[in-house]
């Protein structure tokens, strides 16, 4: 669905990503893992158009979107949820959902909000609460629900389970699976919680120092020695 070829990007003169080749297949969960500072969050930002792209090509359903600005991408069905500040804390849950569909007209907006609430019924009881007063899990669900309002086809999530309890993290992972299975949404995750994320994923990539160190099925990555060395702490970074 998204294809990245030889992407070089960063901020200003500082290059962070080098020659990234990556593919996100439709209807599958793709997860990117890697140590801190490996450039995986920067990669999501590059896809969404929040960094400087030096060279390379990004295509979405066959269309070149390398240099398309973020709000245009939103209209094309690409959503990006940053790790923090992904909802408006001063707005109520209802207002957050309404604002997510700012570009839709009245009737369509109501329809989409109802749809988002079907997927996230947990939000129904707290519609008039301020997003700032929600728990971490509720906030993450609200953020994902806002993406549904926007008719998202591909949903990029930057560490959606960071700072959540293992139990809540599982709820979020289950929701991500549900989005793939029932609503034809293609999730693209960046996760610190690598093992559990890969367990629900179809495709897995590992970034090291701004480059793709491994790409393949999630299962194969889980069993790969590089992955084990990083996340199960067998060898140090220098040896990779």
């Amino acid at each position, binding site marked *: 669905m998204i294809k990245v070829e030889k992407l070089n990007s960063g901020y200003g003169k500082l290059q962070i990503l080098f020659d990234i080749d990556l593919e996100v297949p439709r209807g599958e969960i793709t997860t990117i893992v890697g140590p801190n500072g490996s450039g995986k969050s920067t990669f999501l930002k590059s896809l969404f158009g929040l960094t400087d792209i030096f060279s390379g090509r990004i295509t979405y359903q066959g269309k070149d979107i390398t240099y398309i600005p973020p709000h245009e991408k939103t209209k094309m069905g690409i959503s990006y949820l940053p790790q923090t500040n992904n909802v*408006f804390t001063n707005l109520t849950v209802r*207002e957050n959902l309404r604002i997510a569909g*700012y570009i839709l007209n009245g009737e369509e907006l109501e329809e989409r909000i109802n749809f988002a609430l079907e997927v996230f019924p947990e939000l129904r009881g707290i519609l008039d609460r301020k997003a700032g007063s929600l728990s971490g899990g509720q906030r993450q669900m609200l953020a994902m629900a806002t993406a549904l309002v926007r008719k998202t086809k591909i949903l990029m999530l930057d560490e959606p389970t960071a700072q959540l309890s293992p139990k809540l993290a599982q709820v979020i992972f289950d929701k991500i699976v549900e989005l793939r299975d029932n609503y034809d949404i293609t999730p693209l995750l960046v996760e610190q919680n690598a093992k559990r994320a890969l367990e629900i994923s179809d495709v897995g990539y590992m970034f090291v120092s701004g480059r793709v160190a491994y790409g393949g099925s999630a299962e194969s990555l889980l069993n790969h020695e590089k992955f084990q060395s990083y996340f199960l702490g067998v060898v140090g970074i220098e040896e990779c």
Partner: protein
Amino acid sequence: MIDVLIGAMVWSNLLVLLALGLTMTYITTGVPNFAQASFAIVGSYIALTLLRLIGLNPYLSIPVTFILGGILGLSTYYIALKPLIKRKASIEMLMIATLAWDLILFGIIGAYSEVLSAITKKTETLFVFTSLDFNIYGIPGRLIVSSLLVLLTILGLYLLLYKTKFGIALRASMENPSLAEAMGINVENTRLFSWFLSGALACMAGSVLPYLQEIVPQTGYFIVVSIFAASIVGGLYHIVGALVGGYIIGISESLFTYILSILLGPGVLVYSKVISLLMMIATVLLHPRGITGTEMWRRVERWLNL
């Protein structure tokens, strides 16, 4: 004593209107506007002109000053700030730009006051409207009008910000412009709106100000500290801060001057600025985000369910 209270309320009402604009433009554009006080004096001179040339009562000229003030606010943004923001100028440079704009307005006000004097054959460099004020059961018009203006402004802002789609978008862009942009909201509109309103409210306040005190072209330099004190004490990151800060500063200034005048005799008006300055410094030292940035305020808000 009752006169002191009336004066305090009128001054507080006007400060609220002036601080509202300052806070709003600070939230949307991130620059403290040093020309805010001059906006008010421009409003005073627009009201004076309409009074002298077509005999319009300054209260009735408020709709005109509102609109012209809005245009003034917009041109401040378009001429002095937007070109710099586009070039990614630092906040210090933007502040110098508002100082420069303030000086330009000061020059225009001064020049205009002399032009107007030449037309009306009177001295227009110093004027008051006090003798024109009306009275209902002993309550002076300036108190009624300024209170009404504040009420209308708050009501209007509340309806706009909480009940319309544009308003929700405004609040969203004030809180997190980049996220709002990602949702397809044009954040530039928020800036334009806040600058229009800032100029409009300030000029509106300016057309009532001559009922309270003498106006000279330099009056802006006299009131600017009070406006900043109101916004900072109330909290620069919250619109409601202007309301809270405006009344705290307005009433403290008036009462402090009153007590001083009993102790020391007349001529102590200038010391009212000392109390504003001290309150501002205390805020900056203890809690730079002001009253509306405190935990206690957040609890009050939750309790009010705002």
